[in-house]
């Protein structure tokens, strides 16, 4: 069937459907204008319109699990009976046949791909007031959670219409607050705190259910959405209407949430416990949400005014005015309780016979007075949001190296006097040794070690500080040691041993090997008598072992490095079960204990930025970022006493350089800096009298235009970071660049002054850089449409893109005479072939040239007779010239520089190549902590 006809059928079908069924026949007849076949086709599609809706509507993958009967087996668990059913699923009492214990099993109604991650975070919570999550499992495709079985009643069944006795309510609320505080410190927010999720045991102990699960259950598109929101409740109206009553204002408004939403919900629960009804009520969900957002909570006049103050602070509409930390609320509750029980609350006055009812304005005045006198012991107290102090406060920072190259993986001797590290100062990465305060450095390996990688710690000091250990990146090789002054390294310990660590007293050694599951061994100081204390399943890695100062624990980084999903764990050095300490699920490295409970380490933040320096309180499992600013911390280590730290700090730089195009092959010494007025500059592109390039003010890279010696930002990186070079029209009057919009890469154009921005080819997902046709009527770029990847030509004045070639194609460049488009074809491994075509899509044969797959590496000479290209990797990146007449290639440069080169352009006079070089630019910093 031809596509025009098909399009008509589709259009008439949809248009007919918009009409009442009795009018459809007439419409179709009229629309088809006597084309009987067309009319019949459309009619036949409409014939079963009533049945189409349900047809295929249920995917083969979707069905609801049927309820389980007692005796049913779910993996190792035997179902004993149904405990209850809630919004998320059914809960069964069950028996764990392996451990002989009773458990509660929650079977989820819906599949959730986030279950694993969220539940894992929740399962790390270990608190007396939080129901412990034992297991997250899947049986026959059904997800279920195995939890601690807690006998007792849920709080909603305990609260009567008169509420609970005040002491009891406050006791429960304080327990809940304490649980929230612990969870928040672990970055887990409940989001659905309500009496039905709180179990009270016969002994009066409170246990909170379903931590972090609200986030998992909600069905919203995208990976990181907030929950439960007004929307999700509204769409499920009727089933979970009750939940609305405990929502925070920000939740009711469907705004982003943080841990303070739980504090508001606890305020509501506390109010209900004391008063017997909820503070915000309405006849409908909408009314309830409206009250939460707008109405003040009615005062609790039956109780002392200090109680109202606590409630008011918990129920503040604006999260900024609320308790910032649940532990502060717990503290205030306990203080209030003590004061109330001992009749020493301020409102009880000297007489100890406080009037039971007070007028609110008087309370306010009294509270003000209390604050004014500085005697307020619960109201107006400033509450720090972070309860872990920064161990780097008042530390002294000293720059240890100032090489131009990269430094990594710095280690410090136990006595804090020597630093060993990797650097490429002399070419390849070598191990260097420096003495603190001396300022000179010894290259210990002199280019003899290949592949000193940095995925793991590869260099360090022996326990007595007399030797250096090293490991190359080959998994099959073992740790070797060499004297401090250098010398031939000799194999030290174990087969395929990777990263060794001596205990602080120097008597014991820990290391892991490269066998599957990275088994961890503990041995004598010399490596003798090794015994394996832990091994993981294959695929899971255990890196960076580090001893706690007392030698009782080994800290290590566990996870899947390739996916950047790692966290800090610890295990008793005598062996036992590992315990998770952090919940980053990102790149984590270099755990460095500085005292018995504080561990410094480097980790990427949740947004992928960093790595930054972090501190962990291993006892409370609280973490905080301790480095600030934009400098990245790539490694950290400490002396034996934990007082002197050494860290590698990177501050990426990018600059422009130039080299002449001549008959002679240019060398590294011919490279000249190409100076621009900004500190950072990369991805140069010339257009008439201007140079465009990328630079940034600290956020993402924006587009800058340099003309007549003045640089002007024409696209602000804060509005969307540019990741590809811009395309500049030959006359320099218009530019095009690729931006991420709504998660898709789109091509956008604007004038050279940054005005008149237009999105091109809205439906084309583009990749790589674009190029203008010389007449500025077209843009060409690689992209993907409904038919798959290809090379496209987009009319600048509007209209659909024209497909020029099929298959992956990137970074096209248009010849100055407009007769040729060169581009990089689909890559094979690291390389992509150089291809070319006429603008109508007919291919042109070129010599076999392989381009590096990253970067934009082809530019025409302005006279159109040659094509400059960049080839090679890392240190051997060079420029070449393809003569388009003779089809011969010749090298233009023979460079030797470790920087990454991304792209280049040829100056409008055709005499020079201007290119960028990107460097990590790291240095080593000594950090002396205050004693």
């Amino acid at each position, binding site marked *: 069937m031809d596509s025009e006809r*098909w399009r008509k059928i589709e259009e008439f079908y949809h248009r007919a459907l918009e009409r009442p069924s009795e009018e459809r026949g007439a419409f179709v007849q009229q629309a088809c204008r006597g084309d009987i076949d067309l009319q019949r086709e459309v009619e036949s599609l409409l014939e079963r319109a009533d049945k189409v809706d349900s047809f295929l509507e249920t995917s*083969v*993958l979707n069905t609801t699990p049927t309820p389980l009967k007692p005796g049913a087996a779910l993996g190792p668990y035997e179902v004993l009976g149904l405990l209850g059913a809630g919004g998320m699923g059914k809960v069964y009492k069950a028996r764990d046949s392996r451990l002989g214990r009773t458990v509660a099993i929650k079977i989820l109604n819906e599949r959730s791909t986030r279950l694993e991650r969220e539940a894992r975070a929740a399962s790390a919570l270990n608190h007396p007031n939080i129901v412990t999550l034992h297991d997250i499992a899947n049986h026959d*495709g059904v997800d279920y959670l195995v939890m601690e079985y807690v006998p007792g009643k849920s709080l909603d069944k305990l609260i009567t219409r008169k509420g609970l006795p005040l002491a009891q309510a406050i006791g429960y609320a304080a327990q809940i607050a304490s649980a929230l505080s612990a969870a928040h410190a672990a970055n887990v927010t409940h989001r659905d705190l309500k009496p039905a999720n709180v179990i009270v045991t016969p002994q009066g102990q409170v246990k909170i259910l379903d931590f972090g699960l609200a986030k998992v259950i909600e069905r919203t598109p995208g*990976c990181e959405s907030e929950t439960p929101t007004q929307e999700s409740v509204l769409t499920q109206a009727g089933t979970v209407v009750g939940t609305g009553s405990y929502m925070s204002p920000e939740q009711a408004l469907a705004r982003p949430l943080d841990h303070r939403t739980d504090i508001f919900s606890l305020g509501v629960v506390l109010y209900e416990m004391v008063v017997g009804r909820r503070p915000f009520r309405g006849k409908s969900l909408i009314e309830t949400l409206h009250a939460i957002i707008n109405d003040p909570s009615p005062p609790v006049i039956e109780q002392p005014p200090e109680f109202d103050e606590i409630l008011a602070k918990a129920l503040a509409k604006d999260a900024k005015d609320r308790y910032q930390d649940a532990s502060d609320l717990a503290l205030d509750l306990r203080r209030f309780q003590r004061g109330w029980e001992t009749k020493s609350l301020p409102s009880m006055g000297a007489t100890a016979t406080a009037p039971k009812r007070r007028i609110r304005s008087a309370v306010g005045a009294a509270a003000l007075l209390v604050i004014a006198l500085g005697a307020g012991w619960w109201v107006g107290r400033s509450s720090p949001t972070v309860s872990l102090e920064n161990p780097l406060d008042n530390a002294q920072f000293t720059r240890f190296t100032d090489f131009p190259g990269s430094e990594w993986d710095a280690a410090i001797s136990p006595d804090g006097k020597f630093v060993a590290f990797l650097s490429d100062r002399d070419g390849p990465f070598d191990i260097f040794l420096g003495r603190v305060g001396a300022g000179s450095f010894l290259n210990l390996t002199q280019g003899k070690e290949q592949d000193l990688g940095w995925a793991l710690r590869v260099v360090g000091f022996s326990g007595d500080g007399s030797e250096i250990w090293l490991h190359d990146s080959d998994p099959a090789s073992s740790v070797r040691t060499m004297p401090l002054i250098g010398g031939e390294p000799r194999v030290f310990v174990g087969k395929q041993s990777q990263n060794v660590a001596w205990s602080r007293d120097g008597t014991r050694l820990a290391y892991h090997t490269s066998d599957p599951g990275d088994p961890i061994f503990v041995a004598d100081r010399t490596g003798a008598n090794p015994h394996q204390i832990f091994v993981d399943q294959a695929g899971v890695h255990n890196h960076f072992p580090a001893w706690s100062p007392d030698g009782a624990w080994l800290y290590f980084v566990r996870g899947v490095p390739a996916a950047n999903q790692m966290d800090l764990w610890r295990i008793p050095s005598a062996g036992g079960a590992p315990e998770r300490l952090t919940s980053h699920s990102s790149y984590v490295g270099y755990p460095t204990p500085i005292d018995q409970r504080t561990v410094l380490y480097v980790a990427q933040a949740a947004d992928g930025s960093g790595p930054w320096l972090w501190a962990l309180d291993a006892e409370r499992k609280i973490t905080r970022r301790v480095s600030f600013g934009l400098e990245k911390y790539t490694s950290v280590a400490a002396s034996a006493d934990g007082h002197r730290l050494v860290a590698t700090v990177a501050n990426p730089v990018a600059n422009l350089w130039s080299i002449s195009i001549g008959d002679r092959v240019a060398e590294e010494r011919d490279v000249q800096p190409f100076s621009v007025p900004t500190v950072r500059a990369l991805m140069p592109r010339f257009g008439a009298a201007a140079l465009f390039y990328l630079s940034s003010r600290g956020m993402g890279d924006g587009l800058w235009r340099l003309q007549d010696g003045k640089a002007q930002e024409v696209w602000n990186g804060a509005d969307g970071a540019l990741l590809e070079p811009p395309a500049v029209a030959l006359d320099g009057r218009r530019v095009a660049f690729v931006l991420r919009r709504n998660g898709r890469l789109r091509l956008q154009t604007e004038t050279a002054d940054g005005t008149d921005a237009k999105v091109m080819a809205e439906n084309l997902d583009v990749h790589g850089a674009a190029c203008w046709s010389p007449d500025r009527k077209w843009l060409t770029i690689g992209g993907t449409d*409904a038919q798959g990847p290809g090379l496209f030509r987009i009319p600048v004045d509007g209209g659909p893109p024209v497909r020029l070639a099929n298959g992956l194609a990137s970074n096209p460049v248009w010849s100055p005479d407009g007769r040729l488009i060169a581009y990089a074809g689909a890559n094979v491994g690291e390389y992509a072939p150089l291809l070319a075509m006429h603008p109508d899509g007919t291919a042109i044969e070129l010599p076999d040239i392989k381009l590096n797959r990253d970067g934009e590496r082809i530019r025409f000479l302005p006279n159109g007779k040659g094509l400059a290209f960049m080839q090679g990797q890392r240190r051997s990146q060079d420029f070449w010239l393809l003569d388009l007449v003779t089809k011969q290639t010749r090298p233009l440069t023979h460079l030797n520089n470790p920087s990454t080169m991304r792209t280049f352009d040829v100056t409008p006079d055709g005499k020079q190549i201007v290119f960028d070089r990107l460097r990590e630019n790291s240095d080593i910093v000594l950090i002396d902590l205050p004693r």
Partner: protein
Amino acid sequence: MESSRADLTLLHPQNISELLVAWGKGDNEALKNLVTILYPELRRIARRYLARRSGDSLESAALANEAYLKLLHARGILCENRVHFLSLCAQMIRRILVDHARSRRYAKRGGDAPKVSLDETVLGMQTRGVEVLALNDALAALSKIDARKGRVIELRYFGGLSVEETAEVLKTSPETVLRDWKMAKAWLLRELTRT
């Protein structure tokens, strides 16, 4: 840091992740490799479900889900790869179901398999799944006319993807997916119930 290459199969997460990324960028070689790696595993899981049930349909939740969770367990699939992964599963599930149905038909050939009119089959089995082979043939015919509509059906029906997820995979708008979905279903229903 295991060095064995023998188990560079399903549970080698970075491998799959990388392939998914490459496939997402349009590398068809990566797709071939992904199918080679994932198909046997999916089929193994599917066989377990199908063995327990008599119908042609997969009534249990799960197939892609289990495979997906399994990979997630290995902590290898990055979040942004999820829809690509699910869309791949949709293709494979379709293949698995078709293969399974074919083998059942061959097994029954010559026997007295009851004749049921297609109309009855299709409309009566809305929740239990349609006759897979007939649907597969019709879907193939549809794809020839309009490839995207074929994909929409595959992703939604065999892959369980939402409208938004389908739009993400096909790089189009949810509105377009909904229009395609309606039209494609009407067309398929007509094909399957044509007398």
